[in-house]
């Protein structure tokens, strides 16, 4: 796996705890990343505009503007990867944060290696496929990092792009949530499957005609997800 980095990736750390923010900066610097700290929700958007980060580390509990709102505002403006930091893994906050546009979350306390693996997974560009893939009326171009459907460009975040690329790269395979977590999110041990559920819903809402009746990505009950080639699907319908 190689990382296409022409410059040092920039990470915006949004956390009100000074020590933790500084420690995060030290660890990220040790990993060859450039970090900038923002300690209040109110100033995030300014920092975001001036720093132009490649990734945002966002604590959900923030003074001023709360983490959820910050997350939504960043997502409105940009497709930049967002990883949430949370002390509570079992609260509705996590799902709400994911639905607000966060790509992933890390529960405190975490190991440095775990955090870095997640950041790397989000900064990584899909290099495994270099040729454009045509899948029904969907065309996915890894080089240009664009997806079109019927000629119309689709606005996908990098994570959604990776998720779609993973699924349509091998339509014969049913992908379990665990495999998707490993390939797309960089988890090396079983993580939280609600991550997959939330992002699959978002992806479907962007690529499917009817999100409630998905035709491109089918749910295989009790197993996972599978991309259905429209050509083979219509053949089987005829059969």
């Amino acid at each position, binding site marked *: 796996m190689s990382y296409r980095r022409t410059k040092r990736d920039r990470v915006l750390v949004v956390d009100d705890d000074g020590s*933790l923010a500084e*420690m995060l900066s030290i*660890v990220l610097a040790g990993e060859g990343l450039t970090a900038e700290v923002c300690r209040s929700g109110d100033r995030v958007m300014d920092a975001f505009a001036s720093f132009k980060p490649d990734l945002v580390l966002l604590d959900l509990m923030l003074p001023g503007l709360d983490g959820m709102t910050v997350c939504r505002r960043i997502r409105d403006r940009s497709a930049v990867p967002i990883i949430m930091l949370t*002390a509570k893994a079992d609260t509705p906050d996590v799902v709400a944060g994911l639905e607000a546009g966060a790509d992933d979350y890390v529960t405190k306390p975490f190991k*440095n290696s775990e955090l870095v693996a997640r950041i790397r997974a989000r900064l990584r560009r899909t290099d495994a496929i270099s040729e454009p893939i045509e899948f029904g009326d969907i065309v996915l171009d890894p080089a240009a990092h664009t997806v079109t459907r019927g000629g119309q460009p689709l606005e996908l975040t990098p994570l959604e792009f990776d998720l779609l690329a993973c699924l349509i790269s091998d339509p014969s395979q049913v992908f379990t949530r665990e495999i998707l977590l490993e390939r797309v999110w960089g988890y090396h041990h079983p993580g939280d499957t609600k991550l997959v559920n939330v992002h699959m819903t978002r992806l479907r809402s962007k690529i499917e005609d009817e999100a409630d009746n998905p035709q491109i990505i089918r749910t295989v009950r009790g197993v996972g997800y599978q991309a259905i080639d429209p050509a083979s699907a219509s053949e089987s319908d005829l059969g």
Partner: protein
Amino acid sequence: MRRLARLWRRSLQTRVVTSTAVLSALAIGLTGWALLRDVASSLADNRRAVAVAEARSGFELAQNRLDSSVETEAGPQSVVLSQMIDSLTGDGAAGRTYELVLQGPLAGDDSAVPVRSSSASSADAVPAGISQSVRSGNGLYWQYADAALENAEETVPVVVVGRQLRAPGSGDSYAMYYLYSMQEQQETLALMRNALLLGGMAMVMMVGGVAWLVSRQVLDPVRMARRVAERFASGNLDQRMPVSGEDDIARLSTSFNQMAASLQRQISRLENLSRLQQRFVSDVSHELRTPLTTVRMAGEVLFAARDRFDPQTARSAELLQGELDRFEALLSDLLDLSRFDAGAARLELSDVDLAAVARECAEDPVILRNGIVVRVHGAETPVVVQADPRRIDRIVRNLLANAGKYSGSDRVDVTVAQTDDAVSLSVRDFGVGLAGDENLRIFDRFWRADPARAQGGTGLGLPISREDAALHGGTLSAWGRPGQGTELILTIPRTLGEPVEPALTSELAR
């Protein structure tokens, strides 16, 4: 029938009304019976007295006629008497209330005796008993009997009065009987009996109705109290009984309400307390997480750079790192226990294959690192149960870690089994074993069999596992013998919350 029995068992009102009705019916029946018997006997006595008096004068008249007439020829029957019977019973004697029977002349034996009677039907109506008495004695005899009188198809009760008459001339003797009907008396009696029966039935029904009304008066408040108590018990703590008046029911209501209010106060106080405590524990552990994260990151940076430190500083970095792991495990265990204590723990159910869990955990490098050989038995076929996979996994890991860390044994056997009702998993070690009450204390928080061997671990693994099992309605039990090892058996019921027998029994169980 079953419904009636159920009604009897369940409804106090039914019992009160039924027993009142039955008892009053019994009392009324007894009184009526005694009354009827009294009336019947006095009616019969009166009738008999009249009959005897009338008959006596009749007999005297007949005897006088016999005495005064001179019978010269012996005939089959005294002409005088025959004439008298005819004159007494003929059409001329209107309003006659009796029948007459004349037997005689009587022969010495009981052979057929000529009979003359006022009506054909009454000829055989004289009972043998009185006839015997009259023939052998001189007195006046009477007896009650049933006889078919003139124009009557059915027999009616009669009183028979009889006496022997002697004809001085011929020396013949005759038996003469008066038969007085008692039909009138019987009709009176029947009328009275019907009146008594009807009246009695009406009385019983009225008494039953009164009992129903009275019992309702008492039972309605009791039933209301029951309903209120039931609602209260089901958690509706605002339920109170209405209080009206100053009677016993009102006092009961007042006491009930006082009790309810006091219970409500206590419960809400405890709820508040438990909520506060849970919140506090949760807040504390969350507040601890941020500084712990910083410390942990710093520790990792130091640990990664320990090669560049002098030996003492390097060792300090290692210790820091190791204890941070333990600190974190302790924090997360404490948070889990606080959720159990607060009743906030929830199951996320799906199909769990206990055999697969056993196989996976048995290959866990953390356990194998201690040089322990784990053998799995009975995991060839799936052992599937509805359970929370995360918790089941945690239990099995805890059991294996426990066996690996504390037993001092280098061999651990894991056995999986199932029945129709439950699935069980046992983890057996062959180490020092536990003695006596240690089998119970193993589930105490922070308890360790041998503090000297307490390397790592939080001392909360087994207590949490037992709570996890209990959350499924299952059990986690320990058996052990000193020198032979320890066996822990997890049992999860197939139907949530139903108590079941484990699918496995321990070899160490006595």
